[in-house]
């Protein structure tokens, strides 16, 4: 269940659309739910969102399964989403992905045993001029090098403690 504050946020989002078009709020509300409920969308969360927007649960599942930013399984506290499309590949993203795999001892799509890190490879995020790069939470980390990756991992560990 959302807090009072988040429920107000949902109301504010719905008010952006004409009356009766509250389904348009679905993607923004799913973002909000994912942030609020541990970084992923469980079936219960999706049903809850459906009830908030007065739409059928299936309408939520359809959308949640279509968009790559919605996680349908639990993920680590910090998700490294490393871009691997052409422009990043040309600047060495493969090496960065290999380095993270070794450093964290996980494969792509896996989470470390302590539940802290998940490694994902993603397609172009629009930072081609600052490659290689990854998304970490709300922000982009650009011009990645093994040293920078080390520093990011350390930064996350410190934050988690």
């Amino acid at each position, binding site marked *: 269940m959302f807090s009072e504050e988040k429920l107000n946020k949902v109301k504010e989002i719905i008010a*952006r659309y*004409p009356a009766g*078009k509250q*389904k*348009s*709020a*679905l*993607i*923004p509300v*799913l*973002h909000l739910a994912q942030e609020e409920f541990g970084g992923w969308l469980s079936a219960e969360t999706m049903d809850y969102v459906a009830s908030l*927007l007065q*739409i059928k649960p299936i*309408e939520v599942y*359809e*959308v949640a399964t*279509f*968009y*790559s*930013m*919605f996680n349908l399984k639990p993920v680590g506290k910090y998700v490294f989403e490393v871009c*691997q*499309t*052409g*422009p990043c*590949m*040309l*600047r060495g993203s493969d090496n960065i992905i290999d380095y993270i795999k070794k450093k964290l001892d996980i494969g792509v799509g896996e989470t470390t045993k302590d539940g802290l890190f998940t490694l994902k490879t*993603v*397609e*172009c*995020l*629009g*930072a*081609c*001029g*600052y*490659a290689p790069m990854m*998304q970490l*939470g*709300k*922000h982009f980390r650009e011009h990645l090098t093994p040293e920078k990756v080390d520093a990011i991992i350390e930064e996350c560990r410190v934050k988690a403690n």
Partner: protein
Amino acid sequence: MGRKLLFDKAHIEGIRYYDVYRANGGYGSAEKALKSMTPDQVLDEVKKSGLRGRGGAGFPTGMKWSFIAKPEGVPRYLVCNADESEPGTFKDRYLMEFIPHLLIEGLLISSYTLGCNSCYIYIRGEYAWIPDILEQAIAEAKKNGWLGKNIQGTGFDLEIYVQRGAGAYICGEETALIESLEGKRGNPRIKPPFPAVKGLWDCPTVVNNVETLAAVVPILRIGGEEYSKYGIGKSTGTKLISACGNINKPGVYEIEMNISVEEFIYSDEYCGGIANGKRLKACIPGGSSVPILPANLLLKTAKGEQRMMTYESLSDGGFATGSMLGSGGFIVLDEDQCVVKNTLTFARFYHHESCGQCSPCREGTGWMKRVLQNIENGKGKMSDIDLLWDIQRKIEGNTICPLGDAAAWPVAAAIRHFRDEFEWHVLHPEEATKRNYGLAHYADPLVIAAPAAV
């Protein structure tokens, strides 16, 4: 220095904020439009300017606007396409991040022209920090009377809302974007009806790219006719180019569309040449979906003329020997890069992003990816090259939206111009996993066929 119209004030400290933007002439175009011009007069200026859609298709903006239906009592909507997702393209991000008020002012003028009272900015979900910047700009504009009810006492009302997507390239296609804005999967619609007649919530809707809408501001400032004097021929005005790959200075550049490709790559004002003293092998000049060109065809057309950074010159020679300006996502490959591998990453991208509605795209993109994977990993056969050619031909033109074409073109162009590199992979599977084919003959001077004797 090339003349600038969008980024001429981008270097001013604090231009992101209303006070600085306004003090430097910001909202002057909106003031002019709303207070001294009718919507039709504004439309005329946009038509005169020759502005073409900056998202990739290059369709004349004034003409697109003139198509909007105006049934009595039905609201009309303007939707700003900020879903920038074409690999190699990151120009709109820069504009929104650093001069958000330029976009807000453009949206205001455009909404006034089209008669829209609600406008939505649909921004790709991964640009998660930019909505905050835009919403702050919107709040500032509202506080200063540029949004909300009775704007500057003119009686015109406008609200602008920011909506985040959630990771789907296809939502950059205008009807998929509308579906997504309605809270659905991003499946493109069958056209007609076009959005201008039946768009968002079945109402008349115009969808334009960020850069297109921002360009309306300088058009009003200097006048459509003056704007049309920038650039060459039908490539009027300036264009944002996001340059990336193996160059010395990747980044977003505003160019007047009258410079050569060679100047853009090698001058210090722009890309500053190929990184690490390497040589240029190939380039994808307009985002991942446009045809890749080898160095020799990139710098000169098949007729031996200098290739320019314009819609017409980049597409000179059609797909046989030309490419497209597209979205301005300029991807440069140096002599050490592998065209097969680069093509594989694009095929994987389009497979990942196919919405799955049309079989040729849903199945074909995955098939191309797997065949390319085999060739790249030394498991390819000669017949695979022809198979790839065959698959891409059967995707192109056989899908509801242009994603099919976008997936087919890079594969077709790579085979068309780099067939021997594909063959080398097949013939030297072991070597191909250890080293790249290199520059080969791709930068050799073009052999121009002599005109036939009369």
